[in-house]
């Protein structure tokens, strides 16, 4: 089943194209890794998927009854407030809000769903911990758990491992991979090419005006992939 189809999509800011004539598709159960240099339009593409930015050409459509409220999202920019009074549990539960219009209270089932997401992100025991007191890796897992709580069919993650050490990064990717194995469709921006190649079922590489979309093995052999992985190694 195709969940997402991009057909000849063009996205621009003030008349300047960032993404041009882009076509790709995301099937249910896929893990699509979006790679590319800084400024190549990865976050812009995600914003378009979330309906925050309208296509300036071509189209981007949902399939198989997918709706925006079934997507869990992890933004690239973080809420960077020191001293914000909020606990892990409070934050993760806000992932539930997209599901309904009106919400004076969370139901038992909803709280259980949030608890499962915290479990999956290995946050058990930290439910009542104040967010500002957590380490960067733990904070990232909290935001990921929020996305997971919201995600009923698809996770859209913008650089989930930004700023984390290699060990924590590997753990984070394993947690995402587990979700993917369990049937969650994942669309993830990453600068970590080796991990992307190992866990992705599809790679989308954005390069100003040009792009690659295909399987990881094809990507490693493509000119764009060879150049980028070569550059990444230097």
């Amino acid at each position, binding site marked *: 089943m195709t969940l997402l189809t991009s057909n000849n999509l063009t996205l621009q800011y003030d008349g300047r194209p960032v993404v041009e004539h882009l076509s790709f598709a995301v099937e249910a159960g896929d893990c699509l890794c979006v790679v590319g240099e800084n400024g190549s339009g990865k976050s812009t593409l995600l914003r378009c998927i979330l309906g*925050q930015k309208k296509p300036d050409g071509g189209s981007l459509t949902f399939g198989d009854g997918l709706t*925006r409220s079934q997507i869990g999202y992890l933004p690239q920019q973080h809420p960077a407030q020191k001293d*914000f009074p*909020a606990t892990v549990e409070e*934050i993760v*539960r806000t992932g539930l*809000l997209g599901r309904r219009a009106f*919400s004076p209270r969370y139901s038992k089932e909803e709280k259980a769903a949030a608890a499962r997401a915290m479990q999956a992100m290995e946050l058990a025991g930290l439910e009542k911990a104040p967010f500002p007191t957590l380490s960067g890796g733990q904070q990232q897992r909290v*935001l990921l758990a929020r996305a997971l709580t919201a995600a009923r069919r698809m996770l859209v993650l913008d650089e989930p491992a930004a700023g984390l050490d290699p060990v924590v990064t590997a753990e984070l990717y394993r947690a995402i991979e587990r979700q993917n194995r369990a049937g969650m469709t994942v669309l993830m921006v990453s600068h970590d090419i080796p991990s992307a190649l190992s866990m992705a079922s599809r790679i989308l590489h954005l390069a100003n005006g040009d792009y690659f979309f295909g399987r990881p093995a094809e990507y490693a052999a493509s000119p764009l992939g060879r150049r980028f992985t070569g550059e990444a190694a230097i």
Partner: protein
Amino acid sequence: MSVSQLFADPYLLRVVLRALAVGALVSLCAAMLGVTLVLRRFSMIGDGLSHVGFGAMALGTLLGLTGSYAMEFTLPAVALAAFLLLRLGDSGRLKGEAAVAVLSSAAMALGVLFYSLSGGMTADACNTLFGSASVLTLSNQDAWLSLGLSVAVLLLFACFYHRIFAVTFDPAYARATGLAGGAHQLLLALLTAVTVVVGMKMMGAVMISALILFPALIAMRLCASFRATVLAAAVAAEGCFLVGFALAVAAGLPTGPTVVTVELLVFLAASVKRRA
């Protein structure tokens, strides 16, 4: 007036109780909204809006719309200003604090001009700025309107509590996931505007901002979760208001400044406690 006089006169007692009820409810509204406003870096919005309220009140006086129509006239003006400020703050073309400062001083200047055009700064203007020196000036109609509006603010806040938290914590996420559309912003602007306009009656334009800021700042020094912060802000607001109000009535002091002074003292105590 002395306290024994107060209890001897049923009319006076009723007037004081009416002011007490309005003040307690407005303090509660201001405290609740204050938590989200302070955390979203809109601390000064209460100040800016109250100055807009002052300007609107002055214009109303110039046009001869004084007395009972004052609130109906200022409310839309303040609501519009609140919406524009919240909008500006998020779109980022004019930084939120700069926008508030500009609006605040411009509205103040216009307000003073309007008042002088309509015959100079009167006791009326003084009341608008510094609040009613005596609680007796609150009319029955104002009291009921204030009570109704405050209850509406509290109900809406309770209904949208989780959403307000989500938006306050992470506005970018809330926007991207459709939690914080224009409707949400309009709602927050309306709630803030109503609280400021109703609070101005009691506290005056100059001091309403204290009702919004102090309880939130006190609570944030003592609590680690959002829920606890909101509840603590509510308790702090009520406690400070009741103590301040009682002192003001007993000693014949103006209500607004007395309440703010009590809040200041509690805030200092909370800051010391956190250091310790």
